[in-house]
């Protein structure tokens, strides 16, 4: 029981920290900006995690959907003159709509094929944005995306306000993810990840479930994209690019795919590491690249996975069997055979 308390305390501590953070850095717009940007990425990565980590379908079109969200907000606010909030809502809906359409076709493929299919689909989204100048501004991008409209007395012109706005959506995303993961639906996704064939035999409509999971996943990306547009206020087609999706994936893997805290830890670590390594300029990739490869080799379940198995190791050493019918007991201690 004390563990639950610990965990809860930990969560509360992190929450308070994130709420108080801007006060400590209230005059450092750079730190706030990077933090806000990181939060936006985390939202998108949670979406990726639901699909890749829990449902087992690696979609590499995620940056494309991020861009669709961003461009929806951009186009709707700058060209159609919509209110930001309405635009954001529509952006999420548009992303989901396109996700639904793509998902229906893409999910006919499996495994690597799905990954590469979506990679190419993402690239097509990129090309489309790049070429469709009339709507998207082409290579030049969209300029002059407005800040979110004030809600009553709350204005979003300051960095702090944007920080809290994004934090709110981040917490919402985490909340939704946690709820999904710890539900029958989450178990269903997990079953599909483990074995689609078996899930089918058990009466699970795998096609539908994968599709729903896909749509939910892209809705996170769309939301994150919309927020991104209003934070950076200038968007270009490169946000749909393959570099972006691999960056997301990298953060997710290093943090720990299929874990709840992985997206946060991976993103925070890498975003700040990249800022720190700026002083090495172009040569930083000489260090960064191998580090990434090594982490993947030696900590395949990411940082969170490494911590978990370390904890699991100590736990099993202490108590042989603690009977708690918990879900997703992620301990990997093998081969404890009853004799």
């Amino acid at each position: 029981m004390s563990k639950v308390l610990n965990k809860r305390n930990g969560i509360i501590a992190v929450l308070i920290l994130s709420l108080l953070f801007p006060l400590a850095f209230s005059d450092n717009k750079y730190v706030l900006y990077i933090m806000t940007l990181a939060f936006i990425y985390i939202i998108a990565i949670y979406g990726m995690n639901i699909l890749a980590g829990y449902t087992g379908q690696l979609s590499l079109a995620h940056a494309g959907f991020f861009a669709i969200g961003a461009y929806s907000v951009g186009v709707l606010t700058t060209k159609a003159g919509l209110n930001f909030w309405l635009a954001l809502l529509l952006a999420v809906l548009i992303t989901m709509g396109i996700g639904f359409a793509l998902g229906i076709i893409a999910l006919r493929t499996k495994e690597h094929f799905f990954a590469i299919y979506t990679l190419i689909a993402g690239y097509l989204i990129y090309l489309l944005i790049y070429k469709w100048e009339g709507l998207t501004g082409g290579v030049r991008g969209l300029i002059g995306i407005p800040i979110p409209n004030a809600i009553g007395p709350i204005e979003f012109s300051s960095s702090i306000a944007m920080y809290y706005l994004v934090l709110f959506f981040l917490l919402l995303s985490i909340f939704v993810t946690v709820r999904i993961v710890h539900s029958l639906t989450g178990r269903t996704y997990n079953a599909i990840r483990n074995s689609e064939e078996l899930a089918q035999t058990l009466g699970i409509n795998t096609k539908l479930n994968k599709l729903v999971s896909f749509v939910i996943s892209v809705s996170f990306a769309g939301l994150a994209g919309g927020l991104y547009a209003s934070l950076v206020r200038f968007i270009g087609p490169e946000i749909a690019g393959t570099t972006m999706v691999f960056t997301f994936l990298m953060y997710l893997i290093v943090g720990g795919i299929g874990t709840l805290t992985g997206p946060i830890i991976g993103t925070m670590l890498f975003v700040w590491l990249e800022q720190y390594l700026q002083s090495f300029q172009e040569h930083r990739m000489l260090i960064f690249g191998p580090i990434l490869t090594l982490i993947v080799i030696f900590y395949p379940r990411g940082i969170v996975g490494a911590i978990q198995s370390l904890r699991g190791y100590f736990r099993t050493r202490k108590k042989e069997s603690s009977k708690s019918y918990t879900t997703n007991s992620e301990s990997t201690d093998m081969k404890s055979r009853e004799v």
Partner: protein
Amino acid sequence: MLKLSDVTIKFGGFEALKNINLEVHEGELVVLLGANGAGKSTLFKTISGLNKMTSGDIQFNGNSISGAAPDRIVKTGIVQCAEGKKLFSEMSVQENLMMGGFVHRRKKAQLKQSLEETYDLFPILKEKKDDAAGSLSGGQQQMLAIGRALMAKPKLIMLDEPSIGLAPLIVEQMFCVIQSINRNGTTVLLAEQNANAALKIASRGYVIENGILVLQGNSKELFNNDDIRKAYIGA
């Protein structure tokens, strides 16, 4: 011919094999009996070099083969027909058989002859020689796996539960085949749960339980041993 001394294997904390001492002499057909998870396959894999020993020594024809790579072991003449068949499922039956002769790839004529011999042993394989191995039924695949192992012209062939999942008629044939392989001069080490049939063709046997060799003797003794009858013959 094959001699295991004090072979021990650990997977993490779990001892899958404990101080195994086992011997197979030239020309023998030795059966290794044991329930599920007793460690039969682990033992075979160890001999084949697919598992790393924790301690102990394995000798073949007087030379230690402990720690040798699997391909070296095949070259020295120990070939295993593993559980789960491990076929090249998208290659044709014939290609699978030819790959079985990989270590003799330079001796074209010999390979050709082995192929014919194998087809004689399993006519069904000849019928299906151009079909993909993965499209065969379970029993046909088992035959292919044995055939492939024979293509390597082994001195010692290890068969891991060749009767698993086979129809009674086929099981019978299978045991006949094994017997004839042995009679043609190949030493056989056979892992089985089907003690009844196995002991009928074997000269000697070992019984393994939870990673420990608990019993050994010639097939008559084992066949008449009450514990064995209870556990493996079910009569």
